[in-house]
């Protein structure tokens, strides 16, 4: 079940690639297929991602889902800028969930991020691989840095070249005399101009270049500007449609109860007892669940609640959070798999003047996206329509087809805005989709399956609970010379437990310790746990060796100038340890993830009730270059709040094999009243673009916990903070 997404993609592409060369070389070009199959009268695709209408509208076809991260604006900005399109004439469309719009650029991006450069002659294969693997994923903070940088910009620049070539031929002038501006090609010497719309049909006869000349950043007209998001107006007037809002005619509604103990099957249900209720159409028994189908969701839900449902009992019923932690502890005593081995850590620890050890852990977490999980499915005449919001439309189309044993091309996926993704709507987290498909298979009308919030909290693919044990050694000069870290579970991304600090001896290893609790990607994946562990332990080492936690970190970043600059920017902007109000303290933390480097300073106090109050968070981020600076800020704010909810409140516990929490009443969220001020500092280092959806989430828990230590003298080695009653007594001055 655990798969390393990037390695899987890469391996499959490279291994599969050898068989596909013949196919790729004989295939018609992709944009000509788009023109054949997807263009209405007068419309022209210049690449699969850019369509021009006769009225001079440019439509950017985006192969990513909009879930609040702004890609339906950022990606069109990148294409339109390179194309020199007039932004007021640019529209965005979600790419159809069909093979032609599979996103091969993502594979190249992930390969490059792993240091593998795939040559251009493999492009055809890569796209074929993307089709075979149904790649239209929105995840890994990858949209702008991979699809945008290597796809949208290239598409825009290639289209501009095709348009200029077309105009040059019509006017019989050299291309060098022509420029593209505001959706026109101009011949300034004669004052003549064509609109893109007038040129598009002829331009589409050229083959788009795979290596067009891209703009120097100094020539950008859209990239780098805070352009208002295209999706926002519909999200303030109630017209934005999410999957849960789909209303195909004749639709029925299904409410579902799955075995609360994961993996256990249905034994019996007294279905007949609810059939007389108003609006109830049928009770559907699935292998591990019961669904009530009715003409209104509330009627279905009420009838479901009235049923007496019995699930089997298995050894899974014995599992608890305590038993899982005991299992983890035992696993860490056993054989470990190597992650990083540098120097001779064993010898360094043996010879160290001081050795410090600590054990950290964090609980399971649910995603709790605001839009409850849902999926509407309609089987009719050998075809199938699916209405749902997903982080991989092509992948979900494939999933439904495989469950129904149908050809993928007979399944149409209708895409929507996502009411939150955070990893919950990825193609390896499909339990809702699977159920909705199986329920709908029993009907010839559309059936909308909606999960209650209770099902959402209790049937998630959770962020795994993790235990992490550290030992560190100092030499007689108070220098950190050894870092040992043993943790549970193989990480995705693999580098999540790699501390950026220069330490001569490092030994990092893990033990697999599977449980029956389903797990999946939760915003920033393994980074959120490990950054809390590592950045808390580093802080602990600073205090234990009598050093300032900021300076201690900075001293170990001599060979990482970008990291040092980000850390410095956060500390300086936050006024590190200067002029703090009485009873307030600051904590700092740093991490690189998804190609971006983030440092955060949290200003914290302890309430009279002994709870943690976060007043202010300064978040410095180096994502290379900001494409839409306001989106950078909003994603940083969002990442901080998401991570802060986890730090303060997030805790899914397992009791008798099932999740104990049920709803927002006992799985609490940060709300307006406890939301800190957030100050985002963007550093334009000019490095390769980094991701934005996830990197601001990992550091916040450690930044807050490190401030709590200064206020209380208590080192927080286990989250969430709500489980503590702190006494706000400074016990140590640094």
């Amino acid at each position, binding site marked *: 079940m655990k798969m390393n997404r990037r390695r899987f993609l890469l391996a499959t592409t490279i291994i599969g690639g050898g068989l596909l060369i013949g196919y790729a070389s004989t295939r018609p070009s992709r944009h000509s297929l788009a023109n054949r199959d997807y263009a209405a009268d007068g419309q022209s695709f210049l690449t699969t991602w850019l369509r021009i209408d006769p009225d001079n509208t440019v439509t950017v076809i985006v192969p990513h889902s909009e879930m609040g991260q702004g890609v339906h604006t950022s990606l069109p900005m990148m294409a339109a800028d390179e194309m020199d399109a007039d932004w007021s004439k640019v529209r965005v469309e979600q790419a159809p969930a069909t093979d032609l719009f599979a996103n091969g650029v993502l594979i190249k991006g992930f390969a490059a991020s792993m240091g593998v450069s795939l040559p251009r002659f493999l492009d055809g294969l890569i796209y074929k691989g993307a089709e075979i693997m149904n790649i239209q994923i929105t995840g890994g903070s990858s949209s702008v840095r991979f699809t945008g940088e290597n796809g949208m910009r290239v598409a825009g620049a290639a289209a501009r070249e095709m348009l200029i070539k077309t105009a040059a031929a019509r006017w019989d002038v050299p291309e060098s005399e022509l420029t593209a501006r505001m959706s026109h090609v101009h011949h300034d010497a004669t004052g003549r101009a064509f609109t893109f719309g007038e040129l598009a049909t002829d331009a589409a006869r050229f083959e788009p270049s795979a290596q067009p000349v891209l703009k120097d950043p100094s020539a950008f007209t859209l990239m780098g500007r805070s352009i208002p998001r295209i999706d926002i107006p519909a999200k303030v*007037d109630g017209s934005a449609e999410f999957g849960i809002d789909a209303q195909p005619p004749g639709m029925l509604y299904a409410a579902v109860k799955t075995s609360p103990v994961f993996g256990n099957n249905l034994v019996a249900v007294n279905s007949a007892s609810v059939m007389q209720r108003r609006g109830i159409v049928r009770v559907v028994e699935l292998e591990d669940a019961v669904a009530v189908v009715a003409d209104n969701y509330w009627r279905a839900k009420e009838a479901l609640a009235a049923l007496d449902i019995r699930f089997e009992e298995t050894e899974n019923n014995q599992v608890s959070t305590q038993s899982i932690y005991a299992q983890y502890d035992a696993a860490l005593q056993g054989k470990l798999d190597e992650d990083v081995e540098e120097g001779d850590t064993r010898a360094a620890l043996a010879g160290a003047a001081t050795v410090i050890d600590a054990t950290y852990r964090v609980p399971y977490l649910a995603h709790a*996206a605001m839009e409850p999980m849902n999926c509407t499915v309609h089987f009719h005449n050998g075809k199938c329509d699916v209405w749902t919001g997903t982080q991989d439309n092509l992948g979900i189309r494939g999933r439904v087809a495989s469950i129904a044993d149908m050809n993928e091309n007979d399944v149409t996926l209708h895409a929507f805005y996502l009411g939150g993704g955070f990893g919950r709507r990825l193609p390896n987290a499909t339990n809702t989709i699977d159920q909705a498909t199986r329920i709908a298979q029993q009907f010839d009308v559309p059936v909308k399956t909606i999960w209650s919030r209770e099902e959402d909290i209790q049937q998630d693919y959770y962020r795994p609970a993790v235990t992490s044990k550290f030992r560190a050694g100092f030499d007689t000069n108070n220098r950190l010379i050894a870092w040992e870290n043993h943790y549970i579970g193989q990480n995705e991304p693999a580098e999540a437990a790699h501390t950026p600090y220069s330490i001569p001896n490092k030994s990092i290893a893990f033990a697999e310790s599977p449980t029956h609790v389903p797990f999946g990607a939760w915003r920033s994946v393994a980074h959120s746990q490990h950054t809390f562990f590592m950045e808390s332990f580093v802080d602990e080492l600073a205090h234990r060796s009598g050093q300032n936690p900021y300076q201690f970190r900075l001293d170990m970043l001599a060979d990482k100038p970008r990291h040092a600059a980000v850390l410095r920017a956060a500390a300086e902007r936050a006024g590190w340890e200067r002029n703090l109000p009485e009873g307030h303290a600051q904590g700092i933390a740093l991490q690189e993830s998804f190609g971006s480097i983030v440092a955060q300073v949290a200003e914290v106090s302890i309430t009279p009730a002994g709870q943690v109050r976060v007043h202010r968070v300064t978040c410095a981020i180096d994502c290379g270059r900001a494409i839409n600076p306001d989106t950078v800020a909003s994603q940083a*704010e969002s990442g901080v709040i998401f991570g802060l909810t986890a730090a303060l409140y997030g805790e899914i516990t397992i009791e008798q094999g099932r999740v104990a929490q049920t709803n927002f009443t006992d799985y609490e969220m940060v709300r307006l009243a406890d939301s800190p*001020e957030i100050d985002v500092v963007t550093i334009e280092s000019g490095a390769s673009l980094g991701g934005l959806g996830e990197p601001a989430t990992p550091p916040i828990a450690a930044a807050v916990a490190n401030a709590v230590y200064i206020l209380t003298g208590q080192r927080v080695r286990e989250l969430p903070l709500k489980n503590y009653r702190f006494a706000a007594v400074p016990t140590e001055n640094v």
Partner: protein
Amino acid sequence: MARFRVNGVEHELDIEPEMPLLWALRDEMGLTGTKFGCGVAACGACTVQVNGNPVRSCVTPVSAVEGTEITTIEGLTANAGALLNPVQQAWIEHQVPQCGYCQSGMIMAVSALLTSNPSPSDADIDGAITNVCRCGTYPRVRRAIRSLTSATTA
């Protein structure tokens, strides 16, 4: 039979009196701007205005709104005419929504607050706006509210 006005239009629905207003709006009337979030009045995604007061429609049976005037996000938009309601305008100005799912409820709660209390203190705002936003748009929510109030901070 349940009778109430929604966005200025009289409705008479042949539904159970205990059906929550949320599902009457969404499944019986097709007004999907009002969102289902938790079903237990804990998140505010389903907030509508009943006679101008913010109400969590997921736990409000239609029998309790008999004869009232209900405003949903669709009505707030329509009532504002060509321009959006000032709260909606501020939401665009400050680029508040991210995924957007909670924002109908958030906007209905804020517009009800500012109608009854045009100069809320921070404590008033914290007490009234308890909606959950999983994307964490809170800093912008506060900024957008503050742009509409006479008081600066409190």
